[in-house]
């Protein structure tokens, strides 16, 4: 069984992302499933960034530490990650960085410098990159030095291009050397390079030359490595996409017509990917069926998030499937708009990519701190739908379901995801994005409302027939209103509308299938039940297997629908749980709070992580073991 874990690190702007993607593609071509995510600073150039990757035969649910191989494209990477490589693993580095002192590295965070110096000093090692390399070596890590400067000169000769123009291939040099040492045949690396830079022939040529030079060098110095066996997923048509990509894909499949946004990490890449595909040519057969041959999505960068949400509301009123995408700070600005969408019963989808707060916090780091923020967003008793996706596949389908629910229940739907899922890439099979499972349901949308149309007609399920703006004389408003949408402060009419909106949320709980509310994984009779939501899903599923190896039988309750909260279902499942441990990436224990509020179940322990890094499988294991030892709250803190 292959379980390959890699970190590729270097300065931001130094091609870390593309090296990571080439690694991802090489391993996918080789037949593996991959999971890879980028950790980076809120900075354009120079700060430390790294790509963290895992490849397995089955689906990796979690990234993990320590890794098998570290590619360090600068001294800071060596000094940041030297404690994250397993004995027997390798580090690929440039010997030229050896003499670099911790104190001389400007971008390196001062608290990290202090921690590293203390550690190296305590081992009697110099506080330089060389010290860190020695520390690794003494723990059985193999050092693979690459004279990058000399190699670049060779690339320049080979590609017949000046050094300056080939200097960007330094990431490919390092990456190819590392992948080759890990047993990936050069053919895969070269093919991945061509895929990565498709359409840019010159860039491909330069990088392929670099790959060959690197492979040749390590073969000469370290000999032929043992070939990594091929994975089981060869000969397939697969997709490799990030969470951002998959949400954008889901939206387009769902028929989104309008997307408004204001740039903010980590939502911008979703908008960017959607914009890249906002204009789709339909095949002739389809064009005939729908009556047009070019599908165009109006994607507009607005002046702020206030505009984004209100423009999305406008487009939804006019009949478009309409959405906006943002992160915590932007969502704060959208709050009043959410409340309007509740009161005026507007079907909009708001994609909320959580990042580490409060305030601007750590813009490029992950967290699950906006659970309560999303549920309680909007002033004045504003019930809404909140769904959290656990992984890439769910992110795709949820993006589609969100539009269906928005239109069926005429309500804002908040699709909750996080930075980790946003930037994490995963390999997917065709069956996993199966359109036969997808329906487009527009609820009570009417094309010909006719005379006497009432936008807010009182009905048994609380849902009124919905006409588009432009098809009937009508009034839509955020003021309390009568059935015809005219403003009112009449106490009886007011109450009717309050309960109408409440009935819609009841209906949500009535009609949604259980799999969209809460899902129990594993043996119902387990000794301990882990409860979580969002992107911790894969991590917990992986950790369950590891726990089993340690003799702990755990199951996992994933809460999918956070609002309206499926309290009966969750209470029922938890009633037979022997021990309840929540796992979440926030300080307040926001999910634990909801469990108590809705089911009266007080978790026995909480495992939390708030350092802005994703949670890893071994941390869940560690947390659960400590919790079983009686700890009330376990804080896990892994990652660089």
């Amino acid at each position, binding site marked *: 069984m292959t379980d390959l874990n890699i970190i590729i690190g270097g300065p931001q702007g130094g091609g870390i992302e593309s090296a990571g993607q080439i690694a991802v593609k090489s391993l996918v071509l080789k037949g593996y499933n991959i999971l890879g995510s980028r950790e980076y600073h809120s900075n354009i150039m120079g700060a430390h960034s790294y790509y963290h990757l895992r490849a397995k035969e089955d689906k990796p649910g979690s990234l993990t530490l320590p890794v098998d191989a570290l590619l360090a494209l600068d001294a800071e990477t060596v000094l940041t990650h030297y404690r994250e490589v397993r004995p027997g693993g390798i580090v690929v580095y440039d010997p030229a960085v050896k003499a670099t002192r911790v104190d001389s590295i400007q971008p390196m965070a001062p608290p990290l410098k202090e921690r590293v110096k203390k550690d190296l000093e305590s081992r009697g090692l110099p506080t330089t990159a060389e010290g860190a390399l020695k520390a690794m070596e003494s723990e059985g890590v193999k050092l693979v030095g690459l004279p990058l400067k000399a190699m670049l000169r060779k690339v320049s000769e080979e590609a017949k291009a000046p050094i300056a123009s080939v200097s960007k291939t330094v990431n490919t040099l390092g990456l190819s050397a590392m992948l080759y040492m890990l047993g990936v045949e050069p053919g895969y690396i070269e093919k991945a390079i061509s895929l990565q830079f498709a359409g840019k022939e010159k860039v491909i040529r330069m990088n392929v030359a670099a790959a060959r030079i690197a492979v040749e060098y390590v073969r000469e110095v370290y000999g032929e490595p043992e070939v990594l066996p091929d994975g089981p997923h060869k000969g397939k048509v697969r997709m490799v996409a990030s969470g951002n990509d998959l949400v954008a894909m889901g939206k387009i499949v769902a028929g989104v*017509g309008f997307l408004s946004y204001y740039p903010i990490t980590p939502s911008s890449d979703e908008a960017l990917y959607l914009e890249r595909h906002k204009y789709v040519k339909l095949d002739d057969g389809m064009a005939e069926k729908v009556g047009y041959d070019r599908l165009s999505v109006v994607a507009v960068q607005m*002046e702020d998030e*206030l505009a984004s949400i209100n423009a999305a509301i406008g487009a939804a009123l006019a*009949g478009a499937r309409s959405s906006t995408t943002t992160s915590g700070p932007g969502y704060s600005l959208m709050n*009043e708009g959410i409340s309007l969408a509740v009161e*005026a019963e507007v079907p909009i989808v708001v994609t909320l990519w959580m990042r580490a707060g409060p305030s601007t916090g750590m813009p490029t780091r992950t967290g699950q701190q906006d659970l309560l923020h999303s549920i309680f967003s909007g002033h004045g008793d504003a019930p809404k739908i909140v769904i959290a996706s656990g992984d890439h596949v769910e992110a795709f389908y949820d993006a589609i379901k969100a539009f269906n629910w928005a239109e069926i229940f005429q309500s804002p739907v908040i699709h909750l995801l996080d930075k980790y899922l946003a930037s994490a890439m995963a390999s997917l099979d065709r069956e996993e*994005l199966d359109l036969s499972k997808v329906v487009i349901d527009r609820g009570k949308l009417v094309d010909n409302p006719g005379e006497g149309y009432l936008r807010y007609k009182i009905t048994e399920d609380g849902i009124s027939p919905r006409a588009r703006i432009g098809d009937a004389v009508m009034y839509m408003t955020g003021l309390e209103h009568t059935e015809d949408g005219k403003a009112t402060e009449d106490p009886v009419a007011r109450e009717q509308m309050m309960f109408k909106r409440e009935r819609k949320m009841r209906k949500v709980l009535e009609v949604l299938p259980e799999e969209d509310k809460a899902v129990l994984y594993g043996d119902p009779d387990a000794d301990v039940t882990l409860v979580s939501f969002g992107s911790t899903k894969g991590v917990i599923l992986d950790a369950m297997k590891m726990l089993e190896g340690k003799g702990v039988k755990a199951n996992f309750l994933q809460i999918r629908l956070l609002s309206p909260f499926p309290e009966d279902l969750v209470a029922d499942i938890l009633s037979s749980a022997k021990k309840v441990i929540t796992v979440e990436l926030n300080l307040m224990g926001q999910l634990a709070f909801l469990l108590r509020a809705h089911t009266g179940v007080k978790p026995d322990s909480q495992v939390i992580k708030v350092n802005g890094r994703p949670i890893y499988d071994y941390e869940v294991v560690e947390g659960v073991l400590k919790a079983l030892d009686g700890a009330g709250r376990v804080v896990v803190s892994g990652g660089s």
Partner: protein
Amino acid sequence: MARSWLEYKAPAWVQWCPGCGDFGILNAIYRAVAELDIPPERLVVVGGIGCSGRTTFYVKGSNAHALHGRAIPMATGIKLARPELTVIVAGGDGDLLGIGGGHFVALGRRNVDITVILFDNAVYGLTKGQAAPTLPAWIKTKALTSPNIHDNVNPVLLAFSAGYTFVARGYAYHTSQLKELIKTAVRHKGASFIDVLQPCPTYNNVMTNKWYEERIYYVGEDYDPIIRTREDFKEKLPAIMEKLLEFGDRIPLGILYWDQTKDSFEERLEKIMPGYMQAPPGTRRISVDGRPIVDPFEVFKDRVIVT
């Protein structure tokens, strides 16, 4: 005249104070849309929050009432989803230039085909008379505890610099002149703006009907605000700037600036996505027999890998 203005009078009690300038604006809107023969269900009046925003409920249309300050983005979403509709924004000076000032500017940059009617009473009517962004400094209206020490913004100059392609000023009590301005603004393909001076008899006891009557005048036949070419712009700019800046002892009314050279936002969208207008997002079909019309493995080829 194809339709009677009465067809646009919604059955509702109009809640404004007696003598309010808003009545004049409402009447001008009724008459303009009647003369333009816009079917009520194709007319969209998007109101802000304030006395003025209530216009939403008084005009028969397919209307939406926005949050305070957010009428313009809401109208933008509506118009871009269904570009065939006539979209009019009705809002106060607090709404459009105070809390919604950023959107006011952004609409000019986009030149979306929307008509913005500013109910300019220089006070916050609905919240009982606080100073609005158009109240000149040192005026003390009756709800203020001391004279206003904020300078006033010049709405027509702001609209011009933001990129609105039609900029005019009207007077609330001059219904028939205002009606003509509204008609021209609605017909114009692009972002149009009318600053309507609107006495608030309840809270603005300084800028009264009399105060305005002493100052307002209509620009004459000799004033040419129309830009047909870029050369035109250079040539006419000095005279246009003079009119846009004039606000004091004399206040010009009428069309102050009209740029006919620019594409609307919808036309720009059509340029980058031909076919958009024919199958706009609000009305196009998005499924066949309840199934999606695009397959991710066909459309998102940049993420597909054959192993």
